[in-house]
């Protein structure tokens, strides 16, 4: 059947639900970048599944006009893996916050990375637990006097946070992630570009999207100072170089840090494929024979 190929615009990916985020929240930038990336790739909304956990960031799928799954806190990666292996035709995007991804959900990241599950994982990193009103997260920097901080944070850490923050890029690189990038929600063009690359990447594509929370940890000013592009001529093919930079960087470098081609999980362990009832029946009979 010859069907005219529909060309979709960013607005076509908007759902009927208006975002409930605070005005100025970084997550708006991420959302609109996602609309644009989907439009650039002209994805069919019925083939998109955006999976999320719990957090302000976790509300994102509600605002996207494709399929969405708003699950429980911290389980976005295994859920997304289930979706992808169940139907490898789908474009599966996992999103969530720094708490969702690196605290309660931190145990799932190494395994999604080493399996090379073919999904895009975008973490909206605001360095705080926002939905629960501002407790420190695994990425909260130890010194934070200069920025506006929530009452919860100052209650939780009256003398400041003592833990070394985790280093998401270094971690995912050490896990064997095959696509590692960082973006800033206030630089939407780059985020769109990286999202497009991530969606095209066959395997586990990780994007740390800096996405400040204006209400509980307003760090826009700091970030504007802090970010920088990757060094000129950066070659994203060396894991060792990327790791070295992740450990040593003084500014937070934005861009595609690392990419490699490696078979995706649905290729190595296979994915669900439709099978005729008769075929299944034959397999079963053979198996039963072996127990006779």
């Amino acid at each position, binding site marked *: 059947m010859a069907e005219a190929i529909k060309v979709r615009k960013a607005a076509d990916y908007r759902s009927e639900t208006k975002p409930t985020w605070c005005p100025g929240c970084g997550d708006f930038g991420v959302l609109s970048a996602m609309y644009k990336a989907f439009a650039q790739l002209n994805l069919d909304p019925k083939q998109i599944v955006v999976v999320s956990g719990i957090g302000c960031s976790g509300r994102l799928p509600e605002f996207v006009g494709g399929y969405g799954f708003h699950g429980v806190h911290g389980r976005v990666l295994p859920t997304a893996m*289930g979706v992808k292996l169940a139907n490898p035709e789908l474009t599966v995007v996992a999103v969530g916050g720094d708490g969702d991804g690196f605290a309660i959900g931190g145990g799932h990241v190494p395994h999604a990375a080493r399996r090379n599950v073919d999904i895009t994982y975008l973490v909206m990193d605001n360095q705080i637990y926002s939905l629960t009103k501002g407790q420190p997260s695994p990425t909260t920097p130890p010194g934070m006097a200069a920025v506006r901080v929530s009452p919860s944070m100052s209650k939780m850490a009256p003398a400041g946070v003592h833990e070394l923050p985790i280093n998401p890029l270094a971690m995912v690189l050490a896990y064997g992630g095959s696509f590692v990038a960082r973006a800033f929600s206030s630089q939407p063009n780059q985020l769109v570009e990286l999202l497009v690359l991530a969606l095209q990447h066959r395997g586990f594509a990780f994007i740390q999207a800096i996405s400040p929370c204006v209400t509980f940890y307003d760090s826009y000013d700091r970030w504007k100072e802090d970010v920088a592009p990757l060094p000129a001529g950066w070659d994203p093919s060396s894991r060792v170089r990327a790791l070295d930079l992740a450990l040593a960087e003084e500014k937070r470098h934005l861009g595609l840090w690392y990419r490699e081609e490696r078979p995706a999980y649905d290729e190595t362990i296979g994915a669900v494929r439709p099978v005729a009832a008769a075929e299944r029946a034959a397999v079963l009979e053979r198996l039963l024979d072996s127990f006779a």
Partner: protein
Amino acid sequence: MAVDLTIRVAGENGEGLLSVGVVASQAFARMGLNVYSFNTPPAEIKGGPSMVQLRVSDHPVHSQGDALDLLMAWNQENHDRHIGSLKSGGLLLYDPGECRPPERSDVTAVAVPLNQIIREQIRNPRPKNVLAFAVLASLIGVPRGFAETFVRQKFQKRADLLPLNLTAVERGYQFAQECIPAAGKLAPLAPQDAAPRVILTGNQAVALGAMAAGLQFFAGYPITPASEIMEFLSQHLAACGGVVVQSEDEISSLAAVIGASFAGRKAATATSGPGLALMVELLGLATMQELPAVIINVQRGGPSTGLPTRTEQGDLDLAVYGRHGDAPRIVLAPTNVEECFYDTMHAFNLAEKYQTPVILLSDQHLAQRSEAVPRPDPARVPLVRRRTVAEGTTDFRRYALTADGISPVAVPGEHDTPFVGTGLEHDERAHIDYSAHTHEVMMRKRQNKIGNAENERGFVVRSGPARAELGLICWGGTTGPVREALAAAEQQGLSVALLVPKMLWPLPERAISEFMASVDKTVVVEMNLSGQLANLIQSRLCRPVQRLGKYSGMPFTATEILSFIEGAVGHHG
């Protein structure tokens, strides 16, 4: 009377002991005999005392048996451990090189120098299991030709080992025929002309049932005594277009299953108590999003890490009530290996039909013993797939309030009506909504939908007279020995009836209530301390039941239950 032999072989773990059970079961089953076998693995990985027990009969058997007709002891330690279980008049075979001459005078003791035969006549330790099998086979009347054919088939792919094993068969038969006195010979079992049979463990039957039900995605994490389900599926599910993931923990297993179910596939996981405990949060999500999922829970001794290699029925409360908020689901429990196959198929059907998680409760003994069962026929259970949105629907409401509470679902990639599932309270359109009205309506929708499953037929089995003095209720793996005790009690003219609910939630209240009205006294028999089914029944029906519990890590024997019955109704008999 029918012939019915209980045989135990006891030795050191790692000497091929367990394979005696496997080989013998298969051979006996091929003869058309009924076989029920189990073994107790030792606490250590290697070494340690171990035993395998086989019950062989020409009529159906439902439990592992009780006092032994025959004990074969491979060494002194194991002799000492098990000699007390040999019935008076029974047959003891002992290896005289490893055991002192036995002391019991009420049994026939015959020295069977297994190790010496191995050493001197076979000159290779490997076929000790086949040698032991041959001795036993000869004693219970398996024709030698049959045993040989069987061993030939068995070692088809190991031509190098075949001659050794054939020698072992020969020596075993020879020894039994020449050296075992007539007194030691057992009532011979005649080959039966039975329907085709397969020998399966409960875990294998569950895995096969899942495949027959159309399982497409499985994720699991190893745990005793459930791992074999995942291992089996890892080998075989791909042939049916399915995928198996060994995930990093049980939480991730169920999350992946839920994701795959959201994507429209039939998905399952299998675990044991500690794993089920970790799945509680996600079970609530599946209820809230109304997603089908099958969770097989093979119960073991608890609490906590407990007794991983022992059996118990201690997870019913968790299966029914392990959720925050009122999040109903369906709980099933098959009662024997054959039902493990069919009820797993039903579990998938119910999950799809009611769009709900279904927990299937097995237990260590049911899961790891093997039974010769009539070859399962997948066609007996027509498959159900979830109700999906009608072609061309424009006003799609994922959680439409329908008469039966079941709403059509849209599947990513398949239907042009995307929606966002959420674990927050939501309205018919799946939009987040905290209003009192929506919450009330949706709470009732979910509750009533599952409540309706009580009307599903075939999940309650009643036996015995229409009216009885004593009514027993039991579930899951306890049912086998209860059935046997019931048969024996009926023969004694005792007035006992039995009700077995295979659906435990929603509780089949009507059937239980009718049953209780038909008996003078109801006793719930289950393998736990607190009486979990008894509590459920009381909580729903408000009628007192008595409890017969066992919590030793070992299954009930029919004798235990029979003597309970005799105590309870015997004084009238």
